[in-house]
């Protein structure tokens, strides 16, 4: 945009000139609101309002089919606490989070250490590691469902060529979640990789030069300098990753549709099923609220932990 004006404005002027002209008290007092108004309007309409109306709906038998709405009191909430499918799908979400977060952090770190180099090789490595991240979920899952296909898919083709038995990854209860996690790691590790890479590139070269003068070898530099300096980044990545993993829906819906035997169905899919497939908007709203609470608790706990450590480190 108006880059060329930059040299002009960088000439420093005395601070006192900043005082705004008097005589426009109303504009001065409320004018700032106009800058935040567009965002606030959207925020109110598309975030605050659905939060309120969702809570309201959770006390009614609201139906997508548009039949007459009746007040139920706490009935949806009571049903939810007694519904084993709520808890098993919540468990699936937590299991997915627990299984996916460690590799998504560790592999990202390894990748960043490997790809932090200049030249064509560095470019190629960065491209390969990050490329899957720019693909839509549907493309990723189409490819991976095909890869896991029994009989003529890539993985099973390799297994049988190597003399092993085939595994029907997506239709076996104790393999399906693992298959989803592998796909997820392949797809999204690139983002964490990029965060690590940026942090690595932010470490001044002098630090390493000084260490080299002190006679530190490559391994010592890695464990004594690089990794400790990355600890804050790791904290950030873990926080972001946990919250992202808790919101799992796309890959599972598209790869296993929650199966086999609901063994991978995450809580968001159960909400979707109740609200839209089975028309039970009211009940789905109650489950949404419970899950909302879980996310907030996790996030706040992490924030506490994270900021506590930061203060301790200072």
């Amino acid at each position: 945009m108006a880059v060329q004006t930059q040299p002009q404005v960088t000439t420093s002027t005395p601070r006192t000139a900043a005082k705004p002209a008097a005589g426009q008290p109303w504009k001065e007092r409320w004018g700032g609101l106009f800058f935040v108004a567009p965002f606030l309007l959207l925020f109110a309409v598309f975030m605050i309002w659905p939060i309120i109306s969702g809570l309201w709906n959770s006390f009614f038998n609201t139906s997508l089919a548009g039949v007459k709405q009746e007040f139920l009191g706490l009935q949806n909430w009571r049903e939810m606490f007694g519904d084993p499918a709520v808890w098993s799908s919540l468990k699936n979400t937590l299991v997915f989070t627990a299984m996916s977060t460690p590799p998504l952090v560790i592999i990202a770190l390894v990748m960043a250490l490997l790809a932090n180099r200049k030249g064509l090789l560095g470019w190629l490595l960065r491209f390969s590691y990050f490329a899957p991240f720019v693909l839509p979920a549907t493309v990723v899952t189409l490819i991976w469902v095909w890869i896991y296909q029994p009989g003529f898919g890539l993985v099973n083709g390799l297994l049988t060529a190597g003399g092993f038995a085939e595994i029907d990854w997506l239709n076996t209860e104790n393999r399906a979640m693992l298959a989803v996690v592998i796909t997820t790691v392949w797809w999204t590790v690139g983002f964490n990789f990029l965060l690590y890479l940026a942090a690595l590139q932010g470490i001044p070269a002098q630090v390493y030069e000084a260490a080299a003068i002190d006679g530190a070898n490559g391994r010592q530099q890695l464990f004594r300098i690089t990794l400790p300096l990355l600890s804050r980044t790791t904290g950030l990545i873990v926080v972001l990753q946990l919250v992202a993993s808790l919101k799992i829906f796309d890959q599972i819906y598209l790869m296993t549709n929650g199966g086999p035997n609901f063994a991978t169905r995450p809580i968001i899919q159960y909400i979707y099923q109740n609200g839209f497939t089975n028309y039970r908007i009211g009940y789905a709203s109650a489950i949404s609220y419970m899950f909302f609470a879980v996310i907030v608790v996790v996030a706040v706990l992490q924030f506490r932990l994270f900021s506590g450590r930061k203060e301790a480190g200072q």
Partner: protein
Amino acid sequence: MRTTWTFPKVATIVGAVLLAVLWLVPLLWALDTSLKPEPETTRSPITWLPAAPTMAAYSSVLDQGDLIRWFFNSTVVSVLVTGLTLVVSVLAAFGFSRTRFPGRRVLFGLIIAGILVPPQVLIVPLFQEMTGLGLVDTYWGIVLPQVVAPVMVFVLKKFFDGISRDYEDAARVDGATRWRIVWSVMVPMSRPILVAVGIFTFIGAWNNFLWPFIVTTDPSMMTIPVGLANVQGSYGLRYAQIMASAVLGGLPLLIVYALFQRHVVRGVGDAGIKG
């Protein structure tokens, strides 16, 4: 520079390349399958390279027409989401960083709290709301909820806080209004971070599955990820065609990314981490 080829160095490079190959194999396998004639796709044991590569799958996928329509929809939606998000967030960030008005702190606190709200838990009431507003199956219905990105306001506000006030003071001496200061001082000064968050917003909007999946029912309004998942354009044996549509669906952003990789990597450094 002279390189001494020690064992750890060689091992590192070999490891890095192997990992990169592993990461590319799924993409190459999809490409490979898409070039096979259909009967060859279900042969076991599997074949590696197609004996007679064919573009037949691509031409049948493109003939069905929907893909081009979804491509258009995705472009419209992603451009609108990115543009609006940047404009609205820059204005809000400026408002919170540089102006004073009653209730400012409370409102900012509310927005920070909004970061905690996962859009996924709002799908049900949001769909009800869109039904009421008549926005189901419209571009605005897909776009507007995605524009609400409290985290963006937060990141940009922090960045603006770090920009010295001297610049705008100077502009003010020249008679610039606050409105002009936003566009001719703050925006140019934060170009790298805006490019980075812009790219990620674009990728996010292009790839967003859940919300467009909920708010579009008409196949002619779907975006690429939603259309590919919900609409079937071919019948019978069609693995090559499915892979061809996957390749076509993934290609645009792969190309964009290859071109802008430098900005993406640098921009992340500027934007995020220190927050």
